[in-house]
């Protein structure tokens, strides 16, 4: 195991210091072995490794789009040291067996800590609860459950799930989308969808589910997490729920903090995503919600798709965008450069708070004794997104060609240097 000595790095408040890594942990200089590699981190900022609570790794079943290995590499490239694998794989991760498989793959590759998320219902079919306890007690120690990709739309099933996970301090992460209001929906319902002849996905289909779920969570006193909030109305409901003391947390994706539904005018399916891009007013409400804490964290919803799934007419294209490698830069652009958050506040929302919600040990802080999970970022430089050069196996990014702030130069996972940017 290598030891490292990182000299002259700024922390998220700008204070310059030195940091030392030994045996996978951050240590005092005195505990360092003499053979430590020295890293000159002058002008770089050291941040706790980012923690994603919403990642699609596609393995098992869709290895043509991504694998645990390539997804981990993509994560490390983006400065993430922990990711949470959504269960909409083939087979669905609704048993101890599948979650353990994903967990062990993550461990084996050793690039990023992979925390599998278990399905709420068998096959994500929405009717029968999956063996949530078995998944929790497996080696994967699953605590977060989601049918993401689908909504747990049956109120009784959602209630039971919320009650059941109280056994082990678990959390139900809901993909809020009323299926009856969104059959065949292609993009946000509004003036643009009316003009483009694409079936609309109305905001109320998200808001109505969030409203119902926060009331259920209140009634049974359980933890609810709302995935990828995209609507101003949704933010309002969550704000009110928190004021009432309801145990709800929420996430927003980087792309929903920046992009709007008018991008669909080009009919380029790179902008097709579920839940869809919405209006300027929604973007503004999401930014304000993230700033005031109504929305707790940023989560990428990294959704890799092979080329042929996007190289076709809009209605035939798959929904989703990759996002691990651009997440920090986009979030920085949307929230720090606009002065809505300080760097430190942004980093909390990408690292400390998601780690708390998931109860992930060893992530979210840079202090002596903590796991050596951190990234070194050059905040003075910019980088150009070149889709074909992404580490992810899939290249479906809506940011291709953009020049973004914040270059991730190195990432450490449990004390190992797992990513280093090639200098040009």
């Amino acid at each position, binding site marked *: 195991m290598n030891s490292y000595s990182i000299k002259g790095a700024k922390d998220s408040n700008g204070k310059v210091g030195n940091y030392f890594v030994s045996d996978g942990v951050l240590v005092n200089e005195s505990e360092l072995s003499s053979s430590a590699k020295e890293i000159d981190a002058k002008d770089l900022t050291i941040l706790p490794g980012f923690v994603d609570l919403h990642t699609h790794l596609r393995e098992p079943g869709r290895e043509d789009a991504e694998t645990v290995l390539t997804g981990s590499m993509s994560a490390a490239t983006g400065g993430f040291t922990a990711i949470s694998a959504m269960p909409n794989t083939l087979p669905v991760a609704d048993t101890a067996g599948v979650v353990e498989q994903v967990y062990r793959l993550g461990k084996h590759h050793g690039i990023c800590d992979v925390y599998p998320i278990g399905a709420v219902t068998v096959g994500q079919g929405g009717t029968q609860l999956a063996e949530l306890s078995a998944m929790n007690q497996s080696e994967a120690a699953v605590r977060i459950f989601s049918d993401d990709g689908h909504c747990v739309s049956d109120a009784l099933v959602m209630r039971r799930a919320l009650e059941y996970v109280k056994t082990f301090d678990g959390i139900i992460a809901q993909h809020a989308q009323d299926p009856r209001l969104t059959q065949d929906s292609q993009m946000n319902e509004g*003036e643009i969808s009316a003009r483009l002849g694409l079936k609309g996905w109305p905001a109320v289909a998200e808001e109505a589910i969030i409203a119902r779920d926060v009331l259920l969570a209140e009634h049974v006193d359980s933890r609810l997490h709302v995935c990828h909030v995209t609507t101003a109305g949704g933010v309002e409901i969550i704000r009110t729920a928190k004021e009432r003391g309801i145990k709800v947390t929420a996430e927003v994706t980087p792309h929903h903090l920046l992009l709007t539904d008018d991008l669909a005018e080009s009919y380029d399916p790179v902008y097709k995503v579920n839940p869809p891009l919405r209006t300027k007013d929604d973007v503004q409400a999401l930014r304000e919600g993230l700033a005031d804490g109504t929305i707790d964290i940023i989560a990428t919803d990294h959704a890799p798709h092979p080329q042929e799934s996007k190289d076709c*007419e809009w*209605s035939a294209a798959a929904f989703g965008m990759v996002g691990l490698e651009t997440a920090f830069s986009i979030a920085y652009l949307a929230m720090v450069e606009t002065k809505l958050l300080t760097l430190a506040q942004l980093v909390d929302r990408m690292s400390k708070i998601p780690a708390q919600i998931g109860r992930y040990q060893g992530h979210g802080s840079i202090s002596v004794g903590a796991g050596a999970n951190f990234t070194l970022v050059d905040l003075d430089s910019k980088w150009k997104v070149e889709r074909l050069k992404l580490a992810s196996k899939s290249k479906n990014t809506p940011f291709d060609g953009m020049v973004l702030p914040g270059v991730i130069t190195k990432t450490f996972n449990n004390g190992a240097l797992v990513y280093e940017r090639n200098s040009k």
Partner: protein
Amino acid sequence: MKHLLSISDLSKDEAMEILDTAAELARLSEGAVKKFPTLRGRTVVNLFFEDSTRTRISFEAAAKRLSADVINFAAKGSSVSKGESLKDTALTLQAMGADAVVIRHGASGAAHQLAKQEWMKGVVINAGDGTHEHPTQALLDAFTIRRHLKSNQGDLSGVKVGIIGDILHSRVARSNILLLKKLDAEVVLIAPPTLIPVGVSNWQVGVSYSLDDQIKTLDVVMALRVQKERMDDLYFPTEREYARGYGLTSERMNQMKAKAIVMHPGPMNRGLEISAESADSHRSVIVEQVANGVSVRMAVLYLLLGGATFKELASSGESL
């Protein structure tokens, strides 16, 4: 004009030029001239992924009357039904050297993708993409209105058009709304609320849920086909209720202004959105719409392909 993908590609002047050109061609066709040599040597491909006999034949007739060579590609039974993508179909046809592609497809935006992704080198004409647009239908509708109500000259100012029916799913409605507004007509949409798209307030059109309230004020009654296949989606309780509220019955037709005309893009559900009597009445210009379609499509083909195309001009260094 580079491609014709959407009515919004056209300025008012360009739209008027198409109508004026179509008028001249219609006049010539009424005389002895049935064929012009103008597009000799050009190849036009009809790329139809959806069944449509009338539109395809109309484009074919238009292309042939200009002496173009026509290749017809029908998706059923072709490689597409075996899973070949739009992109590969386009690339294959491109190898045959098409100067223009007339595309009808079930997905909104298909024509845009053909044009923008540059899978084909030719000029792209949208003959109907999903529920998005059908520009040549709107042009022939405007042409028909202008002939009857404006002596074939000028724009459509002062003309009030009522578009009745399934606006939500109608590409004909979308193109017509754009074109009629561009030509300064007044447009009112008449449908049950479930069939009016959210977001229509930006379109500067009137909206009414009552055909009876509007019928006496309209110069043009444009009835849209009820897409019966949509019934499952609960847009209205029964066909009977729809016909009672929004069907163009003889009683309603008799309330129309003296010179008002009845239009329908076809195919009609006689007895549903339009009664048989109304369809066959002296007010109905439905059959004429079909004939005008050929002249309008000839005008579009002439203006896109008759001179140098925008790509040919670009490669020779000139600009349009």
